[in-house]
């Protein structure tokens, strides 16, 4: 009974913390973007403009929740929930610290890949159910982009699995006691980060949205809290990818002096800010360029990396 209570409490706390951080990321993103563009950004409501998130949330909740008459109603309502659910489910296996962890699955890494592959449905179904040509175009782009980059994401992680000999995320963290996997697997790190940006469809890879050509892409017809779900799902995705990069390549919670959770949070926030910096600095590639880049450059590099890692592991044994 005590075990159940402990885990229920942990789930509730993690869920609450994550959604809160995801909401405050809106403020962080706007302030950071403003900083890099030599302006103030939101600085009116509350200290440092922190309360703009509250205002934003209230606005989202009270906007008219409009379902277009030409939309496929059931699927239209259902689609935004998938992205948030899939990302939140992935956090089940993320080890925030040795004892802050919901489930230590022996196939944790695969579980993460599985959940991130389910996130595609949100884009595809949202775009299709909207019954709007721009949404459909966004959905088609999103589907092909996310399916292709999922392949490289999985392949880039297999080198790490070879070195640590396990799919369990706590084992992967513990295998980095001497040095981080970013030292032994630098190529895999770059590939995983690229694939992660494409999976969360953030700039520069936000072609499913591409507001300069497709209105707002797959969520053109969405408003109110349904749009909010897509929005919060995107920020949760950023946190997830940053947390996974930290867990797999940067030693997770490992670090001197400070408690493990603090190390994990610090490292994760470095990558979250890197995500925002990317948005501030890089232009969006064309759709065909993105696909070509994926299949003709990233895939061979990922396979080569796998081959070399395999060879070294064989030699060492």
């Amino acid at each position: 009974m005590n075990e159940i209570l402990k885990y229920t409490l942990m789930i509730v706390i993690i869920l609450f913390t994550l959604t809160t951080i995801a909401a405050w990321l809106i403020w962080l993103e706007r302030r950071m973007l403003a900083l890099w563009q030599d302006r103030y950004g939101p600085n009116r409501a509350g200290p440092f403009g922190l309360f703009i998130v509250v205002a934003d949330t209230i606005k989202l909740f009270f906007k008219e929740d409009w379902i277009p008459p030409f939309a496929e109603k059931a699927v239209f309502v259902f689609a935004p929930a998938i992205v948030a659910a899939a990302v939140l489910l992935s956090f089940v296996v993320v080890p925030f610290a040795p004892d802050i962890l919901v489930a230590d699955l022996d196939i944790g890494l695969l579980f993460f890949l599985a959940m991130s592959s389910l996130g595609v449905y949100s884009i595809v179904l949202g775009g299709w159910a909207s019954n709007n040509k721009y949404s459909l175009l966004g959905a088609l782009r999103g589907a092909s982009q996310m399916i292709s980059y999922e392949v490289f994401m999985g392949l880039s992680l297999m080198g790490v699995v070879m070195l640590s000999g396990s799919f369990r995320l706590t084992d992967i963290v513990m295998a980095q006691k001497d040095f981080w996997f970013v030292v032994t697997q630098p190529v895999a790190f770059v590939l995983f980060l690229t694939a992660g940006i494409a999976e969360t469809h953030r700039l520069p890879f936000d072609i499913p949205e591409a507001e300069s050509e497709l209105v707002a892409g797959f969520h053109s017809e969405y408003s109110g809290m349904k749009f909010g779900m897509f929005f919060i799902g995107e920020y949760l995705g950023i946190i997830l990818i940053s947390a996974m990069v930290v867990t797999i390549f940067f030693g997770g919670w490992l670090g001197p002096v400070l408690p493990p959770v603090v190390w994990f949070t610090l490292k994760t926030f470095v990558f979250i800010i890197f995500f925002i910096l990317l948005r501030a600095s890089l232009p969006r590639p064309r759709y065909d360029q993105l696909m070509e880049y994926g299949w003709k450059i990233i895939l061979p590099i990922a396979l080569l990396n796998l081959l070399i890692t395999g060879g070294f592991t064989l030699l060492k044994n």
Partner: protein
Amino acid sequence: MEIAFYIAGTVALVATLMVITRHNPVHALLYLNVSLLAHAMLFYLLGASFAALLEIIIYAGAIMVLFIFVVMLLNLGKETAEQERKWLKPKVWMGPTALAAILFAEFLALVLSSGQGAYSPAVVGPRELALSLYHEYLLGVELAAMLLMAAVVGAAHIGRHKKLVLHRFLQEEKEKEEEKHEEAVL
């Protein structure tokens, strides 16, 4: 855990029935997805966690997305739903139902005579799975890889297209080049 097994099994059955009876192809595909997720759950509860996640990654996460992708591109409207409705008349159902009923009776007899429940888990880790794949069944894996390679080559061949030149200057240039190429070949 046995309760979870039977719940997942029921969900899989109901979802599969819905796949067959839906008129809208996208709705049918979504139910198929639910059915696949339920199957993954069944695999997991039976101890094959690796197979369970592969089921989600490959079937639910990739292949079904491609199915939906194609259905979206075809943009099937109300006529298709009407056609489906015609195909699902009771008369059409009789033959398949009779045959399926015979198989079901056989299946029931088998299960009841063995005296074992459907739920008998045996944990198979990723390591054991990999060892059996790359030792005992190595030939099968290699053959499957070759088959997939053939499919990739075929797809690359179909996808290859000649460069479309619309401007007349470029067209003339291209013709000249082609002539030169032909001469060189001769």
